[in-house]
């Protein structure tokens, strides 16, 4: 026991750990198994409610997350080495960029979103004759090599004589003792207390805290879900969605907001980003493509919302009219959103840009502090 404790050193790096991939794959399989065995939520509906792991949901989420190579491969605190310079032809550079994109896609693999785990209350044996045999509990672990950690036997013999299965917290701790994971601590960090999380959010370090949470907790534990929801709620309150864009946590955030029906802020943010690009560089056609992407992102987001809430007004309307692309956005703006005026105006502006950019350049309009264009303020 002393040996296990003494030789562990704390890794205070927030870099992504590779081991989570294998763990998340197993959890995906477990999640799929449990989901397949469970009956659908609404008895009246024929179609099952879309889950996080569904192909179409994942596809939409990866598209919205984006692929900003500069952000993904930004310098991480590591051992100081002199930089290596390579001389490449255009073709080689193109190949290197393709490889970087593949690597980036692997790094953007989303951690699983699972329902909170049910507490374990299984008693294996009640031996009243053993009452008072000892003052301490005995924890028996099975250290056979080739079993997945979820199926490992960890049982506790209480001083009262009952032999029960270990609780989830005990399991996590014992597995960390016998099969330590890099970066994980036996007791959770004080950062995860609510009052300390506030300070972290003030410093805009949402991505770091989410990475740490991923390393420390299991994806279906209560702490993990609590920290993630607190982070997403804070981001939504402050509107700082760009902090998580092009990271592996963006998909999870979008899923949480869609399930809570609070995507207004995100839709507005995407459209604002699009407007900001347009007003800043009025004549460039490249920006048109990028702005088209952000409006497309907003349309994707609304279509995901319709997928998850098929009984909502905008979903019904969209199915009636067989709407795709920007029309879905318009319908959402009219039916569900709180900020109807802004969304409609933004869509109008987006549709007008092909006419504007073909001809003259107009002087960039002054942006107010929130980044809104002045005519919008008159309406909102």
């Amino acid at each position: 026991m002393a040996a296990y404790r003494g030789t562990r050193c704390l890794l205070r790096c927030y870099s992504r750990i590779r081991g989570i991939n294998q763990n998340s794959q197993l959890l995906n399989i477990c999640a799929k198994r449990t989901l397949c065995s469970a009956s659908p939520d609404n008895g009246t509906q024929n179609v099952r409610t879309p889950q996080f792991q569904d192909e179409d949901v994942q596809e939409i989420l990866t598209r919205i997350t984006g692929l900003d190579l500069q952000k993904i491969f930004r310098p991480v605190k590591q051992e100081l080495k002199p930089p290596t310079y390579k001389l490449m032809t255009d073709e080689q550079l193109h190949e290197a960029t393709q490889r970087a994109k593949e690597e980036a896609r692997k790094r953007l693999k989303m951690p699983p979103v699972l329902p909170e785990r049910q507490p374990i209350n299984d008693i294996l044996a009640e031996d009243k004759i053993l009452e008072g045999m000892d003052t301490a509990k005995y924890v028996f672990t099975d250290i056979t090599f080739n079993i997945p950690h979820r199926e490992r036997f960890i049982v506790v013999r209480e001083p009262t004589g009952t032999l029960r299965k270990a609780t989830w917290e005990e399991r996590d701790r014992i597995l960390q003792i016998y099969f330590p994971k890099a970066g994980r601590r036996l007791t959770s960090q004080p950062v995860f207390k609510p009052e300390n999380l506030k300070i972290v959010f003030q410093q805009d370090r949402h991505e770091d805290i989410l990475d740490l949470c991923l390393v420390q907790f299991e994806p279906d534990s209560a702490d993990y879900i609590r920290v993630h929801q607190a982070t997403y709620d804070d981001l939504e309150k402050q509107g700082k969605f760009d902090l998580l864009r092009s990271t592996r946590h963006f998909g999870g955030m979008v899923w949480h907001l869609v399930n809570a029906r609070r995507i207004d802020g995100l839709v507005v943010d995407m459209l604002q980003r699009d407007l900001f690009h347009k007003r800043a560089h009025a004549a460039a056609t490249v920006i048109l493509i990028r702005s088209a992407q952000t409006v497309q992102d907003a349309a994707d987001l609304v279509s995901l919302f319709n997928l998850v809430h098929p009984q909502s007004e905008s979903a019904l309307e969209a199915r009636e009219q067989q709407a795709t692309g920007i029309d879905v956005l318009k319908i959402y703006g009219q039916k569900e959103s709180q900020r109807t005026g802004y969304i409609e105006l933004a869509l109008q502006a987006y549709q007008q840009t092909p006419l504007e950019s073909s001809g003259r350049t107009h002087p960039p309009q002054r942006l107010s502090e929130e980044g809104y264009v002045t005519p919008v303020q008159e309406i909102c």
Partner: protein
Amino acid sequence: MVPEHGSNTGALPLDDVLGAVIRHANFLLKKYHGGYVVIRLALGGCTNRPFYRIVAAYNKRARDSKYIEQLGSYDPLPNIHNEKLVSFNYERIKYWIGCGAHPTKPVAKLLGLAGFFPLHPMTITEAERRRNTAAVTEGSGTEEQQEDHETEQQA
């Protein structure tokens, strides 16, 4: 397991010599007459801090010396959460018991508490003895308290 005979290939006198050397070398590796494999606790740790490894070893070997395989661990001192941590590699324990290994008394007790073996009779006896002593001390404690009360009332 230690091989008993060396290689017997080749008809050259050199090979015969080599064979003889190997056979003599095997004699140097301990061949236990009537020995058997045991599953027992090997003590480690520091002063006033014991730590046991559950180990499959030959019966005649010293307690802490070379063993065949480590099958688990046992920490007799409880930790912050008042737990005594025991680990077992059940698959290998099953193999060694299948090979005819004898577990010692403490190992059998631990396996009984774990539910792998039936409960060891001495565990039950010890529990009963503890309960009796606890009852006796309680009884004497309450008697002393009553005496103190009486002396206070008298004084």
